[in-house]
């Protein structure tokens, strides 16, 4: 964790609040979100600390953090929050800002996995595990991990060798371009 002092960045709270549609100012730090978070053990900042950094405008530390990438979006935090804040949505918004501001992601592999997943959807209109994993492994340069599990899944027919493109793939592409235009 960085120990430099916090120098609040103006407008950051407003930007994240608008993007996530969450009233982040309402957080009073009961820490229920962090207590129940299944990924918090691996994060550098707990979900409550992430909300705090947003309130304080401590942007740089936040965008470089692993926490925003390690959130699995299970919504345990949001369903328990006494102030109706969905920390998962805030994490999503922070990832978007991270990409938009071209900050190197704090967890590059997670970022690559997201990228491969989205590419697979873009190409085939649905997920094709084999090509997605190939892309992920090339991007992440981590070729050997989990190969044995992959082999088992292939043997029981969970991984199809060839992709099947859906009929409405054009419409899916349009969704992507709309996203890109924003």
């Amino acid at each position, binding site marked *: 964790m960085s*120990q430099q*002092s916090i120098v609040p960045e103006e407008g950051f709270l407003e930007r994240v609040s608008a993007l996530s549609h969450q009233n982040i100012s309402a957080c009073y730090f009961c820490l229920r979100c962090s207590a129940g978070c299944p990924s918090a053990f691996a994060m550098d900042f707990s979900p409550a600390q992430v909300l705090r950094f947003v309130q304080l405008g401590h942007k740089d530390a936040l965008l470089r953090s692993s926490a925003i990438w390690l959130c699995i979006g299970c919504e345990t935090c949001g369903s328990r929050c006494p102030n109706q804040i969905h920390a998962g949505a805030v994490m999503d918004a922070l990832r978007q800002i991270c990409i938009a501001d071209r900050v190197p992601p704090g967890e590059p592999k997670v970022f690559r996995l997201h990228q491969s997943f989205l590419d697979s959807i873009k190409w085939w209109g649905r997920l094709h595990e084999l090509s997605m994993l190939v892309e992920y492994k090339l991007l992440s340069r981590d070729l050997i991990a989990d190969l044995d599990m992959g082999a088992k899944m292939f043997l029981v027919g969970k991984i199809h060798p060839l992709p099947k493109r859906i009929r409405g793939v054009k419409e899916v592409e349009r969704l992507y371009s709309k996203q890109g235009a924003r």
Partner: protein
Amino acid sequence: MKRIGVFVCHCGTNIAGTIDVPRVIEEIAKFPEVVYAVDYKYMCSDPGQQLIRDHIAADGLDAVIVAACSPAMHETTFRRAAESAGLNPYQAEIANIREQSSWVHQQEQEAATNKAIETIRTIVAKAHYNESLIPFHLPLVKRGLVIGGGIAGLQAALDIAQAGYPVVLVEKADQLGGRMAELSGLYLNLDSSADPLGKKIEAVKSHPNIQVLTGSEVVGVGGYVGNFSVQVDKSPADEGPVSGEAQSSAVKRSPPAPSFSPQRFTFDVGAIVIATGYDLYDKRKLGEYGGGRYPDVIDGLQFEAMLRPDGPTGGRIVRPSDGRVPKEIVWVQCAGSRDPELHMPHCSKVCCMYVAKQATLFKQRVPDGQATVFYIDIRSQGKGYEEFVQRAMEEYDVLYVRGKASKVFQENGRATVWGVDTLTGLPIEVEADLVVLATATVPRAGAMELGQRLHVSVDEHGFFSEAHPKLRPVESLTAGVFLAGAAQFPKDIPETVAQASGAAAKVLGLFSQRQMVQEPTIAFVDAEICSGCGLCIPSCPYDARSMHEWRHIATVNTALCQGCGACTMICPNKACKLRNLAPIQVLSMMEAYL
């Protein structure tokens, strides 16, 4: 010879579980003068009391001893029971065999039983000499004095006056209103304080029962509950007292004084309400925050003054240094509070709420401004208070930083506040155009001296002490003197008004008596024996002793004496005695025991 009845209580198993009650009865029946002895499960119950009443009549008892719990518990109960059967209540005595025997000697039942018998024996010896006493009746002046014309004093004065009793309201400043007049919008609804306060002031000024003395100070107080004599000095700059019906009878004007010296008034009053309010802790003592050094570091009341339309800035929030509208304001809570080492140990209680209010008002007037609050905890205990603070955070985006600010320094006309955000554990620095210190709430200057003049105790900081922290929060330890508002401890307006009305209710309770009733079990002086040495006078903790005006003997002021017995101990020739606890009684009790 007296005819004494002894009634031994089992108190369920509290007494009977340890003490062998039948043996106690058997033994005490042998005492001389004891004509009747009986035990019962609960003497304090209705059938238990009836048993006492029946036997007073049937056996012609002229003294009753109840062997039971502490007299603090039920002495009054049994004295009333005796009285209702036609016996003088002071002929009823308690022998404490619960707290002093069964409870403390549970493992030694034999010894506990013996001790109970001996205890009762001593009380029988005392009862032999008990006189039939009649409570004193003292005159009562049904006029109230309220010291302090803030919201606490205004409310107390109004409540007493509305009930039909005359009130003298003494205010040090030239105008009524006190601190509330210095405030702007009030939480929770941000209404101006001027309207509700103005109404109260008007009601007080126009009330025929209230006599207002502004620019005045209480300089001397004599007497006692029901019969205080109060001297009030009014500074010469003002006109005489605002007239009311109370005036003609209440005021004895001193002979015309030279114009440069204050005019002195003397009032006779029966009860006093202290409502002297609070000061803010001097911000110059907070050097680390630049208090008094930087012009743009101000305290809460200075910020209130800027919010007030009739204030020095005409209601504009501006920096004192250059008159610019500040864009970024930092509030520092607990500035001088909760700091037993360096400043004040207590929580000033009102700051959490007024800071939220000030930050909200700032954001309403400067919507693109940034409000930051450094705090240790938020204490928002009141109806709607928590919601109010939450609203400041959620709707007005007031940034709350949990952690006490460590330092404020100023460079090139801007302040920087250093602190640690304890929620992240990281140091934080916030730039500010203006820093508002929520300095500690302390008693008004002069509270200690006023306490001394009124013989009312104050704590080490000058807050007036209540008689009991939970059950007697509006009474002082001095009979007839009551407390209202922040003079007792920091409190906000609703709490102050509630306490003021409570104090007024206590005054009215006192005034509702026809006369003052005083317990007769107090000291008296045997004029035949008293040598006039005067040792008893300084020994009395209640100022109840003085020398007779022309006879060379000591006297007792029956209204002030509490029957503590200090004078009886110091009197070299036993001329001072407590009624029904005379030296002969103490000696015969000891004899009975040995």
